[in-house]
């Protein structure tokens, strides 16, 4: 028996969401008295996998895996799970996780919970797992009844814990000879923003209150000062003031940063649905009755065009004093 965790490398290092998944999987493995095995594709520094709790790392080897095509990945993970006798498989609930975890679950006839927010409660062969439902308005407790189980973990649900453990690393040759994916990748467009929205600890978001795209300079500057990513409300993306991948909310990205700034955003329920999992929320709005203040931890009632420049200055002073 083992717990298998799918991990990814980005920019030469293990992704933050993967470290969360490995931490999560290793906690489950400890409860089950079994081994946490991470699987990873490609080259990079994978020492963090051991530090995050994996006892063993399988480097999946097959040229067809390079493009991370779910068609091949599903088969590769199935083979790794069979070799390691894994009954529990953990993914991150990110785009790759959403593309492959359900396929793997269906292939293995494993009950799946997508977007878990807490450690499973294990009793015998049954797991109960919490996940957010109704766009964060509630939590549901699921029980997984099947022998095999797939869980994908919602990002930023747990702080990452790294120790000085090391994992045994072995190559694992995957056989994909009989498979030929009909999917041809024509082009990959990387986001130009430096910081990935879903990985960001701090997000600075602005809405229609900013009046036009030409006013985003101060939003970007505040973000840069704080080491934050930027996002926006839906109308802002719809009007093409900002790229669509910045749109957060029910129909956009759901994010859960440590700190979320909402500037000139009214706080419509569909917007909140994508951000109310943030640990701390700061709202800056000229209307003291803006609904967002009801969901905020800190608020400033004021004109963004006056408040934000002052805030940038204050943040710069703070950063300068820290160094």
């Amino acid at each position, binding site marked *: 028996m083992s717990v298998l965790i799918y991990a990814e490398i*980005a920019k030469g290092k293990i992704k933050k969401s993967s470290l969360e998944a490995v931490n999560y999987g290793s906690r489950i493995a400890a409860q089950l008295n079994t081994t946490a095995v991470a699987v990873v594709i490609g080259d990079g520094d994978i020492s963090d996998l051991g530090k995050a709790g994996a006892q063993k790392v399988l480097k999946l080897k097959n040229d067809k895996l390079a493009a991370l095509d779910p*068609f091949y990945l*599903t088969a590769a993970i199935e083979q790794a799970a069979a070799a390691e006798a894994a009954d529990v498989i953990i993914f991150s609930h990110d*785009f*790759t996780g*959403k*593309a492959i975890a*359900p396929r793997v*679950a*269906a292939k293995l*006839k494993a*009950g*799946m919970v*997508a977007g878990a927010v807490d450690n499973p409660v294990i009793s015998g062969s049954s797991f109960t797992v919490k*996940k957010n*439902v*109704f*766009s964060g*308005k*509630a*939590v*549901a*407790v*699921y*029980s*997984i009844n*099947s022998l095999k189980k797939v869980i994908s973990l919602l990002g930023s649900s747990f702080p990452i814990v790294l120790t000085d453990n090391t994992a045994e690393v072995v190559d694992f040759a995957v056989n994909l000879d009989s498979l030929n994916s*009909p*999917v041809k*990748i*024509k*082009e*990959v*467009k*990387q*986001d130009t923003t430096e910081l*990935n929205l879903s990985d960001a600890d*701090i997000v600075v978001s602005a809405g229609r209150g900013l009046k036009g795209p030409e006013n985003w300079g101060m939003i970007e500057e505040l973000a840069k000062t704080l080491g934050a990513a930027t996002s926006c409300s839906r109308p802002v993306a719809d009007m093409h003031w900002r790229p669509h*991948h910045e*749109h957060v909310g*029910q129909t*956009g990205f759901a994010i859960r940063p440590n*700190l979320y700034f909402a500037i000139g955003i009214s706080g419509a*329920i569909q917007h909140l*649905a994508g951000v109310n999992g943030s*640990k*701390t929320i*700061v709202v800056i709005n000229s209307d003291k009755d803006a609904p967002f*203040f*009801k969901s*905020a*931890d*800190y*608020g*400033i009632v004021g004109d963004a065009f*006056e*408040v934000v420049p*002052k805030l940038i200055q204050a943040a710069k*002073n*703070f950063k300068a004093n820290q160094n």
Partner: protein
Amino acid sequence: MKILVCISNVPDTTTKISFTNNDTSFNSAGVQFVINPFDEWYALVRALELKETIGGSVTIIHVGAADSDPTIRKGLALGADDAVRIDAEPSDAFSVAEQIAAYAKDKNFDLIMAGKETISYNSSMVGGMLAELLNLPYISMATKLDITGTTAAIEHDIDGGTEVVECSLPLVLSANKGMAEARIPNMRGIMAARTKPLVVIPAAAADKLTNIISYQLTAGRTDCKYVDAETPEKLIELLHTEAKAI
């Protein structure tokens, strides 16, 4: 082009959520149900646009009880040709996928579309499971879709960017924002929907691998602490010392 669009029936986005039976069931009393926005705005509308330009048919499929029929009729009013409702309780993603797969497996659909996720259970699972059960490629989070002959050109979201792919039909995809603009059904569509076929078929054998034991409302935030607009440095200080967020 034969297109199948999977639609789910969800509480309207502004619904105030509550639970009954000791927090074990969703309280649907007084709740307005709608087609899941991703299924409607993005999957169904794009399917209709494709049908309008290259011909073919659009069938909508739903797994659920008769109380979903008004939602299904709305899909017909928007322009779908016919609808299928599989009379089963849609409580587990895998069993929903099995039901749809059992129906679709011998119908030769060129394209099967799901939404990115339901706004009720937010799982993003049914499309991928369906693709696996039908042994078809699955392109998740599609934001653009064009069909030329038997090839689909799709742009979709991946971690850290977007990817442009080409894939031969048939395939399964999940639809994300960008695929199409929302439409509103017109009077003619609404009238026509009344007589379009809505076939109800009995549930197939399916495996329920998960179930929901209980619900809990998410705790709201404690009162907002206000900082004067003239002294934003006070906010920075609070974020540092109190919230420990910077």
